[in-house]
């Protein structure tokens, strides 16, 4: 029995050691092979989840690229931002989606939930800091263990093939359909696409948002939190009070552009929280003008501005 246990332990250690070496080598190769380079004239970068992904058509906004990805939490946006900044010194401003559903605790599933571990964690594995790895292991050890083969497989693939990360794992997505068709065919939409909003703030999301803020401050990159337009029927407004408290108290020194009430009709929404192609087109044209005409001035007097404020300032000027 003693000999059996000794050899079994030795064998397990060998396997574990080799696995660690393999993961480390694959990570190193993946970092070496893949790049985060973006267009040289891009000085404005937008990151966020599906709200931003479907709202800003970067083909009609000058010097601007949208690298948002559906279901991306700040946990994974942090390494993405770090790598984009590291590889693209021309980037001057980061727009980061900051909206009601990113605060709710349910969004923590976007970090270590089964589906997200197999995709986001695997995608950003080589770029995630060790304390974040430990966080994922601690929060979902069983899910982590079950997903480890998928993560390793993905890592191995990425170590032998080239990927342009920002373009492959993000980008504008035009949506078809409108609010009426959404209401008629509601059952066809997957529930997992929508986050149930409850009151309360996710400490983890907030922690990683603060890390993004600190990182960009350190790199002297301008950060603007941005809330994309949402329909008045959006159930995410359930935590509006928490949202406003957070903006006023904890994010008082961070620039925040609130476009939630950007004037759009029902026909401009695919569902209460996502714009369709028509809505994205309207918003993007306005945003392009805003970036080129008003953007440099708008944050002079205050850190938190809304569409209404920008509009009124324009009228006053005229």
């Amino acid at each position, binding site marked *: 029995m003693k000999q059996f246990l000794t050899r079994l332990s030795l064998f397990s250690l060998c396997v574990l050691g080799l696995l660690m070496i393999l993961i480390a080598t694959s990570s190193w190769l993946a970092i070496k092979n893949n790049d985060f380079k973006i267009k040289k004239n891009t000085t404005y970068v937008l990151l966020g989840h599906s709200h931003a992904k479907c709202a800003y058509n970067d083909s009609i906004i000058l010097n601007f690229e949208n690298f948002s990805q559906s279901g991306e939490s700040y946990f994974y946006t942090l390494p993405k931002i770090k790598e984009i900044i590291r590889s693209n010194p021309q980037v001057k401003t980061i727009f980061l989606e900051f909206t009601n559903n990113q605060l709710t605790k349910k969004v923590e599933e976007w970090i270590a939930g089964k589906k997200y571990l197999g995709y986001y964690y695997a995608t950003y594995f080589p770029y995630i800091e060790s304390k974040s790895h430990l966080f994922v292991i601690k929060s979902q050890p069983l899910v982590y263990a079950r997903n480890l083969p998928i993560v390793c*497989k993905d890592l191995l693939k990425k170590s032998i093939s080239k990927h342009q990360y920002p373009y492959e794992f993000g980008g504008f997505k035009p949506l078809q359909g409108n609010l009426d068709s959404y209401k008629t065919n509601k059952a066809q939409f997957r529930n997992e696409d929508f986050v149930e909003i409850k009151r309360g703030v996710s400490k983890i999301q907030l922690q990683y948002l603060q890390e993004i803020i600190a990182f960009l401050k350190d790199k002297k990159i301008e950060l603007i939190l941005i809330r994309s337009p949402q329909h008045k029927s959006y159930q995410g407004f359930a935590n509006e009070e928490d949202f406003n408290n957070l903006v006023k108290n904890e994010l008082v020194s961070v620039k925040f552009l609130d476009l939630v009430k950007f004037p759009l009709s029902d026909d401009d929404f695919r569902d209460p929280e996502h714009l369709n192609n028509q809505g994205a087109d309207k918003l993007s044209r306005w945003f392009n003008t805003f970036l080129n005409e008003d953007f440099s001035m708008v944050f002079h007097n205050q850190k938190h501005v809304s569409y209404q404020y920008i509009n009124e300032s324009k009228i006053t000027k005229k």
Partner: protein
Amino acid sequence: MGFLGIFKYFDFFAASLASAFASIHIHLDPWTLGLILPVGISFYTFHGLSYVIDIYHNKIKAEHNFVDYSLFVSFFPLLVAGPIERATHLLPQIKKTRNFDYSQAVDGLRQILWGLFKKVVIADNCAEVANQIFNHSSDYNGMTLVLGAVMFSIQIYGDFSGYSDIALGTARLFGIELLKNFAFPYFSRDIAEFWRRWHISLSSWFRDYLYIPLGGSKVGVWKKVRNTFIIFVVSGFWHGANWTFIIWGFLNALFILPSILSNTNRTNMQIVACEKTFPNFKEVASIVLTFLLATFAWIFFRAESVVHAFQIIQTIFSLSIINAPEILPKATLLLVIAFFIVEWFGRMGNYALQFIFSGKPFLWRWSIYIALIACVFFFTGKEQAFIYFQF
């Protein structure tokens, strides 16, 4: 048997009766129970039955030690998907004082590793292809459906024999030898040999407790035919209360019947190309033909319904079979080829890895084990439940 009847077959008979009446224009609303089938019910029912029947036939004495009997009934490695043990085989091992045996434990771990590889790498990867093709069978040409059927044949072998290997290996760690359940069935040269090598614990159960009591093969021609059909149709029914399983059993009876009637069913008792490295042409042809027959029957086993199975067969036997497959899972095919090469060279053992590396230096053996673990890590397919858990 009462539990099995209520949980597994009641709804089937109620629905079938209603369908029968509907065909003569009497419409009945079938009264069904809609019960969830307990995992492994068919396995432990047969497991327990063997104990009762063996006592009845005076093969063993009734067990008076409650703990020993409970362990026999609920020994965890075989509880959900077999092998279906016999009281005469397992109870004496439970009663005997067992000492830790190093080589038995190492062999057990090796068998677990091989079983895990078969399930996670072979079966689950093949399942992805088979599911894609069977679930969208109307979209594919005949050759793609053939590929789907072949993939399912390999999936079910990897899945079930993989589970059996894990169960046998786990039991070995406790010093218990369970009945062998698979013996390289896809290297069989005829259907009779296939059934001696596939799900051995169930086949031998039916042989000992049904076929032989019915007279077996030592009866007249018509009774031989009757007995053959009874055991295969009952075997199909054992798998599930569905006409697809019954037709699967019926087809296998049809395939084995010529060899039983011509008394050639016991021709191929030894493993193919025994003590040779490669088979001869005739053996290869026999193996391929047997595999194709088994695969044809598996179509019914996998299909959602009898109509679905016939639709698949109709497409296979149409002109669309001359087209190339629309799906070509190169990586999966390479894994399958590598798997069958190892199975071929390890066919003299109880499982492929048993003797194939014996006598080799330990560094060599460990490298192979680590390579297998790496395969389990990097080539794992999408997680699939064990097929036989539903029985």
